[in-house]
């Protein structure tokens, strides 16, 4: 199963991300491999949406740009690949929430942490010619949240 979309990096396009995921699930349900259950789909969806939102919010601070999302499956896993030509991603140091102090509660900056917990693999690369690539992997049959990220 292979689904690709090219979208403008703006918040409204999150609806198109959800639509692409729905088409992907339909395609998986008709494939020879066992379709992943609802809980698995939720986790993969959450990860894809967080990375998409990250691109929409940060990749093009001074202009309107586009990004591409490709969803595909292999024998034992689903993959999501994002590509954009925006600025280089630099992770902020707000991955963990301090829940002991209300004033310290962050209102943003923990989306990447959520994505990592939902996946078996998350990789970011920036090529020499300025293309940002995100590669998300989640194994089929993985019922829980992942703990690894690269």
């Amino acid at each position, binding site marked *: 199963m292979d689904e690709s979309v090219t979208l403008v990096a703006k918040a409204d396009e*999150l609806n198109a991300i959800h639509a692409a995921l729905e088409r992907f699930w339909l395609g998986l349900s008709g494939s020879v491999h066992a379709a992943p259950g609802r809980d698995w789909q939720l986790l993969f969806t959450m990860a894809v949406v967080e990375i998409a939102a990250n691109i929409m919010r940060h990749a093009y601070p001074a202009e309107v740009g586009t990004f591409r999302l490709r969803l595909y499956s292999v024998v034992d896993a689903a993959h999501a690949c994002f590509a954009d030509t925006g600025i280089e991603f630099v992770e902020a140091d707000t991955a963990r929430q301090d*829940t002991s102090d209300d004033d310290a509660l962050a209102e943003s900056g923990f989306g990447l942490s959520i994505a990592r917990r939902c996946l078996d693999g998350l990789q970011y690369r920036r090529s020499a010619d300025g293309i940002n690539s995100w590669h998300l992997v989640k194994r089929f049959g993985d019922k829980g949240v992942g703990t690894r990220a690269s």
Partner: protein
Amino acid sequence: MDIQVVERSESDAVIVLSGRLDLITAPRIKEQLVHATMSGRRCVVDMADVTFVDSSGLGALIAGLKAARVQGGDLRIARPADQMRVILELTTLDRVLRPYSTVEEAMADG
């Protein structure tokens, strides 16, 4: 996303959300939550019809919670769907946004 604010008294309000609480809708919801929690109200956000929450949506709820507590009030969530429970656990925010099973339970607690 649709939002409905039910002011049950000067001190209590129920905020009913429906749809996705995400990057698209979070800014508007944050504004509504901060406004609803003014005057030190206890606000309960009924999440039963919220189909999806992302980190931006959580940020809006946190903003509402912080605004409520500054005013001497509180913000709680009730009837979250499975996806919301998962994202709360992943972020450990279930410690501060404890999910209640019903609106009445959230309103009555403490």
